[in-house]
């Protein structure tokens, strides 16, 4: 269902329309009986807008990933969280979470320190940086640590480079595009990247990219639906996370202190940030 809507979206080339559709209705203040024909036009426009909204789900559709990136990344995230008897990355819309993140602050590395020089971790000495020579090189760093990412690329660029390199490796090591490989080989290939098996990978360390896509896939499964993934809260339902339901969001009448000292768990239907804010602001 989600997939089909997305393809329709692509076919229609409605990326620009997506932002227009997010408007709930067009309103212009009118005074008295001023210009009833304008009112009629307005009503017609709002009807068209409503019709469009039923056709186009604004949660799907892409604002960052290219078409080739979409089909490749779709298979990567579905390898990391496969669909079995329970929903996986596909049903959660993980790819939309990543797409939106790459289009926004995350992709722009907006909260990262991005000044040079850029010196990779784990360099054996001596190394010279500027006028200084360091006999012991640079520190070894855990993958995913705050000092590990030492590339002069923002994360959108990093993903672009990484996806191209991954596809090239799929062809050279497994004889075809990633999307065409068996699911067993798809998982093997991703594990190769964690193990830094590719000797050439677009000037980045394969495990650094592997960290990024593994982390972002799970984030897309588990973060609030407001960011495009975890659609219908399938990730929270799967893990049993309650979101902002602290025991009484749906009138369950549970007391939080009692929950804290209980020895057997109580399953709470999750609630999202948007639901919470609607409740807090008194709107339905």
């Amino acid at each position, binding site marked *: 269902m989600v997939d089909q809507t997305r393809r329709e979206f692509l076919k229609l080339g409605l990326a620009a329309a997506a932002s227009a559709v997010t408007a709930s209705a067009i309103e212009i203040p009118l005074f008295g009986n001023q210009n009833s024909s304008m009112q009629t036009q307005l009503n017609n426009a709002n009807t068209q807008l409503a019709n469009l909204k039923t056709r186009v789900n604004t949660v799907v559709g892409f604002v960052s990933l290219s078409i080739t990136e979409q089909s490749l990344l779709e298979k990567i995230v579905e390898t990391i969280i*496969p669909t079995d008897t329970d929903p996986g990355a596909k049903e959660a819309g993980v790819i939309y979470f990543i797409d939106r993140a790459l289009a926004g602050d995350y992709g722009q590395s907006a909260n990262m320190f991005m000044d040079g020089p850029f010196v990779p971790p784990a360099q054996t000495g001596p190394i010279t940086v500027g006028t200084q020579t360091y006999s012991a090189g640079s520190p070894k760093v855990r993958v995913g640590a705050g000092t590990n990412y030492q590339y002069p690329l923002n994360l959108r660029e990093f993903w672009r480079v990484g996806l191209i390199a991954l596809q090239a490796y799929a062809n050279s090591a497994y004889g075809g595009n990633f999307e065409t490989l068996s699911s067993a080989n798809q998982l093997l290939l991703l594990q190769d990247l964690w193990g830094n098996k590719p000797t050439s990978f677009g000037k980045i360390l394969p495990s650094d990219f592997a960290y990024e896509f593994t982390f972002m896939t799970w984030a897309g499964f588990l973060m609030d639906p407001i960011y495009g993934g975890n659609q219908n809260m399938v990730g929270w339902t799967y893990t049993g996370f309650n979101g902002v339901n602290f025991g009484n969001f749906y009138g369950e009448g549970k007391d939080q202190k009692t929950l804290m000292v209980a020895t057997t768990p109580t399953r709470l239907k999750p609630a999202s940030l948007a639901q919470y804010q609607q409740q807090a602001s008194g709107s339905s």
Partner: protein
Amino acid sequence: MPTTITEPAADVVILGVGYMSGVIAAELTLPGLTYKVVAITKGPYWDYVNDFSTTKYDEWGVGLGRKYDSPLPLQSATIRNTPQQFALPVRRYTMPIQYHALGHGVGGAAQHYGGTMGRQGPWGYTQKSSTVTRYGQSFLDSVNPHSDLEDWPLTYAQYEPYYVEWEKAHGLCGDYNGSATNQPSDTGYPWMSQNYPLPPSPLTPVGQLFQTATQALGYHPFPHVSALASQPYINQYGVPVNPCVFDGYCGGPCDYACETGAKANAAYRTIPAAMKSSNFTLVLNSFIFRLDTDPASGLVTAARYYDPQGNVHIQPGKVFFNGMWGYNMIRIMLLSGVGAPYIWNSVPASVSGAVGRGLTNGYLPYKGTNVSGTLPSNGGNAYPAGNGSGGSVDIYDLMDDNFDHTNLNFIGGTEVGAGGYPGGGPGNITFAGSVSSASMGGTFKATQKDKYLPTKTTLSSTPFAHDLPTTDNYIDLDPHYTDIYGDPLARLTYDWTPNTYNGAIYLVNKVKDIFTKMGAQNVTIGSPVPPGGSTHNDWWGHHLRGGCRIGQDPNTSVWNKWNQCWSPVLNPVFNIFGAGEITNTSGDNVPSGTHVAGPQSYRAAEGIKQYLALATPGILP
């Protein structure tokens, strides 16, 4: 076009507005006092109602995006393990442990802490002399090569009244500290002249199990000391406090942002008191970049800061209080030439200076020195309910010199506890232990099913003896990287010390016995990775202790017994005071460096009043 603006002179200028600065502000603007006090912070005033109560339930934006923390493009820090290495800049906030997050705004880093507290006992203040007396100098030299350990300038008994004031101001919860007698003569535990102002939060089932098991083993358990109000409270400044609501949305998913103000920090305990005084001015969103000094008088004359429009403000003052967090306290002094900068040398006898000296950390150190087990019949809603630091039970019996170290290869020990709310949103829980190649595919996915509704509890602990100061761990200015305004970043040079590792190896077996007594199954100890060139040195940078120490010797410490700067070298400047975890002298000894730093802020407030009363500016007697 940015301009330079000179502000009206103040009596007291406070640099940074976190825990310690809040006390200075509240104490120096009490009714009847006439000091003009100005406090300056680089961030905003987080209002828990408007800023947290409807927006904090957002693990991506808050827990991972760290929107309440200091932006890294504004300022970062660089980190290396040895003086011979290039230091890598921290470039991003990552998962699962959020590396190196500075606080931002009123309340500082306490806006994102869990509220863990606990006094430091008598031994902590005299650990150098006590160790030498009991075990000999050669023992200390052997457990801590290149030792730079020093005693504190005051004893526990001298700090005790300040502890009381600090605990009252912040409404700490607890029930004494496990001492059977609670007598001043009890050296093993922090004796208390009065109990914590609020009772502890209700104990979790695991906490109760720990209590029973440790009692059976002859230990002295007590409820974890927490800064999350367990009841409504009004502190000595008349500031009302809401209690914790136990919603469980604490820790990882929201970066510990507290939507009720139940969690103590300056923004909701002390600064509201200062705000009642017309003598107090709070300057927000302003980045302090320099202290002006007058070489003739040896005094700091003004603080310079950028406002959000880029204008330079000059804030003159008679006395200054450095309450910046961690390395920023050191950095502003190094940038301004205040005090003698620490100069490292591979020969301990040849080091010099004090600003940046004696850096230690307060974070779990060694990969593999953990012990874990499973309680088969204890599950529950530990994730969806609970709070940041209450509900658990601790012992101090394996800490300090509360057991004989004669044939051991470390000093000190650790607080051991269990039963706290585990914390974490779904992202934090899934990524606990880091993301790896094992985090992919259907097998891993299956391990995540109903992870939030556990029918059994995993017990895990990484005990460690505290980190001791050496001459090789320090902070200076980085030669390559600058902040957004062009000033050098702080450079942290640090590697784990043998004392923490050896302590962990010993203590992990003691914890194993406790877990077993609790009825845990499959209790196993990890495979330790010894110190040196380790790859797991990346979690400590946000729990710095020491580095800008108080002490008994002006050659090795920055602050004297009044927390007044007394550097005799290069630039003798004595109208600046300071307090914080970074001023703690002797390394990590208790879970909360903040609780140990707290009394120093009350001490400094007294010192500042005495200084302002001096006819001629000078070092306080």
